[in-house]
């Protein structure tokens, strides 16, 4: 029997075994464990990713508040710090070791656990089946495993904070030799081993998830949902998954070599090293730069793994709330594709000052600056989508517009940093901190918030509170600029990142008050995120109830499901799709759902 015959003869194979028949209510008995813990429902798994991500966001954010306290008030002592941190804050002042551990863990947690797992884990799981018209992911079981590998990674990372020598403290990029030699610093001992184990588990989680997202998008689209009828969210999440599947394994290889260097006496990354108090090491022939290449081959695509889902959701939310089709749909897909390709070709711009051949550097400058083209296409398409739109300023829409603002502001400084000559001055300064926090960190957080505000009604059948949402938005966007804008000036003045105390440097003393100001704003912004958390959990139980199927008047498929869809999403048949996702304001109609057949007298778009 040929493969084709098999696929056609067994419908259950093309959809997926197990759920094909569950058209309505739950036939199978659901216990608390199968419904909320080891759930195989993509919507529940999405919520698990979201809430775990929120826990990490609070922890990672709190870490930044703690080290901002040190940076803003380098001379002050806070006795309560010793109460909570113990020996890590002797006498009420964070120790240098603790400071570096906080900076490192803040970076690792925010980049991987919040903005990768928390963002694409949440929305790829939640939106892909709902928006392409599938009952669940291709493999719900692997999807469940994906979450639990992430959970295991979280537990290991969390545990590393409680070991005696502390968590890893050599920076989130974990460059050797600091990460390869246990004698290099307290954090490089068991803390680093746990960091590596946690990250290895994370890679497995990301791989299981990514394979599922790809297979679902390609294979499980409902009838009529051709690739060019998909909402841009799905395109973005699809490219994100491809990026993850192809870049994380390289990081994994790099980590395996690092594990051998740490524990089995190899010299992959080590050569000619002398440690104070230990003496000369026997390792010879390795290259620390090799690790940087392997790391940034993931590291740069990782930036887009974080950013693309936000871009996709923002495109969707801007279009829905402008009541206009997205401007340049095919250009949006093309630019996503261009970004996904370029993401693999620019990694060495993180390494301009490592001794990279200047000629090679100039090629990476060119490829890096090329990213400005698809990025600009996206920005102008968002702006033209807003242009003369009938804009509804919902909290989700506010955050989506905020994303565009932040992406422009942060993207422009990327053009500076992409130049290898300018980078000699700017590398490892606060200018870099400001750049990537705005363009990748805060912008993607805004995309995530936009997504949460917009799809919360679909997740929980209730709305988030709008007033709290607006307060959350305005304080966060004002705060984001007040925190990171001044950092550009500090960076231009040459202030290096990762220093413990700038007040002892003659050239940076001038920034003492500015640093205090940044720290103050950081604390206010953190407090407002707690308001959002309150809003989130309060609204799950007490929020205003959703009473109509399609509260935003959107065209996409998720709004054709019941207000609180069960496992299987649609009661009865999965709807068929007849048009693209952006028929807003067409032929005098406010919007036309994707499920509406094309009428005989309808105009072409």
């Amino acid at each position, binding site marked *: 029997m040929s493969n084709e015959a098999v696929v056609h003869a067994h419908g259950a194979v093309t959809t997926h075994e197990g759920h094909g028949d569950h058209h309505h209510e739950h036939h199978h008995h659901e216990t608390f464990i199968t419904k909320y813990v080891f759930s195989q429902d993509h919507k529940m798994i999405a919520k698990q990713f979201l809430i775990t991500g929120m826990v990490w966001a609070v922890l990672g954010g709190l870490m930044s508040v703690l080290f901002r306290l040190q940076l803003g008030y380098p001379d002050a002592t806070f006795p309560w710090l010793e109460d909570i941190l113990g020996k890590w804050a002797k006498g009420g002042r964070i120790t240098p070791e603790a400071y570096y551990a906080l900076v490192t863990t803040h970076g690792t947690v925010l980049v991987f656990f919040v903005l990768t797992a928390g963002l694409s884990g949440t929305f790829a799981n939640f939106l892909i089946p709902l928006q392409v018209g599938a009952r669940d992911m291709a493999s719900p079981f692997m999807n469940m495993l994906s979450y639990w590998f992430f959970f295991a990674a979280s537990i290991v990372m969390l545990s590393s904070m409680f070991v005696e020598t502390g968590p890893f403290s050599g920076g989130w990029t974990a460059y050797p030799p600091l990460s390869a030699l246990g004698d290099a610093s307290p954090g490089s001992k068991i803390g680093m081993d746990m960091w590596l184990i946690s990250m290895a588990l994370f890679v497995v989680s990301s791989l299981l998830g990514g394979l599922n997202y790809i297979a679902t998008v390609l294979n499980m689209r409902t009838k009529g949902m051709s690739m060019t009828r998909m909402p841009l969210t799905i395109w973005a999440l699809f490219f994100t998954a491809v990026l993850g599947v192809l870049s994380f394994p390289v990081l994994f*290889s790099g980590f395996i*070599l690092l594990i051998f260097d740490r524990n089995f*006496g190899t010299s992959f990354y080590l050569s000619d090293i002398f440690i104070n108090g230990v003496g000369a090491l026997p390792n010879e022939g390795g290259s620390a730069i090799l690790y940087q290449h392997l790391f940034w081959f993931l590291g740069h695509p990782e930036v887009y793994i974080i950013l693309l889902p936000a871009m996709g959701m923002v495109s969707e939310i801007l279009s829905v709330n402008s009541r206009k089709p997205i401007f340049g749909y095919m250009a949006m897909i093309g630019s996503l594709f261009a970004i996904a390709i370029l993401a693999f070709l620019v990694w060495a711009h993180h390494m301009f000052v490592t001794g990279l051949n200047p000629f090679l550097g100039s090629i990476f400058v060119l490829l890096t600056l090329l990213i400005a083209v698809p990025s600009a296409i996206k920005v102008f398409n968002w702006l033209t989508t807003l242009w003369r739109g009938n804009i509804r300023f919902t909290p989700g829409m506010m955050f989506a517009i905020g994303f565009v603002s932040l992406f422009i502001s942060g993207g422009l400084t990327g053009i500076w940093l992409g130049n290898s000559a300018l980078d000699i001055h700017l590398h490892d300064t606060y200018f870099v901190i400001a750049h990537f926090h705005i363009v990748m960190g805060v912008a993607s957080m805004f995309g995530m918030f936009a997504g949460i505000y917009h799809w919360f009604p679909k997740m929980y059948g209730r709305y988030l509170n709008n007033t709290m949402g607006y307060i959350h938005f305005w304080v966060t966007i004002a705060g984001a600029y007040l925190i990171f804008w001044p950092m550009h000036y500090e960076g231009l003045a040459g202030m290096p990142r990762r220093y413990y105390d700038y007040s002892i440097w003659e050239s940076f003393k001038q920034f003492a008050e500015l640093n205090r100001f940044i720290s103050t704003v950081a604390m206010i912004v953190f407090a407002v995120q707690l308001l959002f958390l309150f809003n989130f959990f309060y609204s799950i139980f007490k929020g205003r109830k959703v009473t109509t199927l399609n509260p935003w008047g959107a065209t996409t498929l998720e709004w054709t499901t019941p207000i609180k869809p069960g496992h299987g999403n649609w009661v009865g048949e999965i709807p068929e799709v007849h048009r693209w996702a952006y028929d807003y304001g067409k032929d005098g109609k406010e919007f036309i759902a994707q499920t509406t057949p094309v009428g005989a007298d309808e105009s072409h778009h």
Partner: protein
Amino acid sequence: MATTTTATTTKLWGGGKSPFNVEYGKLMMWYFLMSDAFTFGAFLISYGTIRFSTNGWPDPNEVFKSFPFAPEGMNAPLVFVSIMTFILIISSVTMVLAVHAGHNMDKKGVVKNLIWTIIGGLAFLGCQAWEWTHLHHEGAWWGSNPFLNADGTASSTNFTNYFFTITGFHGFHVFSGVIINIVMLIMTLMDKFEQRGHYLMIEKAGLYWHFVDLVWVFVFTCFYLV
């Protein structure tokens, strides 16, 4: 068949069906293999980077010249590893036969060829275990390299570091493949695939097995030939 294909090409990507006419598991396997190719690619490129930045490297004809039960001092360069490679490639042939038998719903053929594939995989692993033990007895291990460079100068440990890491990682893949094949064999014997009406799982296991073989060709070239 040709006519039905042309009739459906226009709608291949139209939704409601798989554009490649494969079920999701095989799609995932292909993407997984791409991902795994990047893992091995990263290893081998790292190896190349370090090797080209090092002044000298041991001569594989000198390092890999022994044979089990052969008299001391016998010179049989690359003979043993060629036999290993041959075994692995033959196991790919038997895997193809198993997949083919699966297409024909020939349970006996699947069982027979899966058993041969498993034996081939185990034989390869056995050979690798012997080679590793032999090298270990000569003093080679992670972090220690008894061999001199081809030009007689002292060699860095990265020759053995990479050799054991990458062949070990490949061996681990072969080991996983053997386990997968054993599971497939048990499932075949329990008539799981007869009940499903297709042997698609065998095909997916076959993809993995061929991939592992293909990777060995590159590993073999990088460590034994150049």
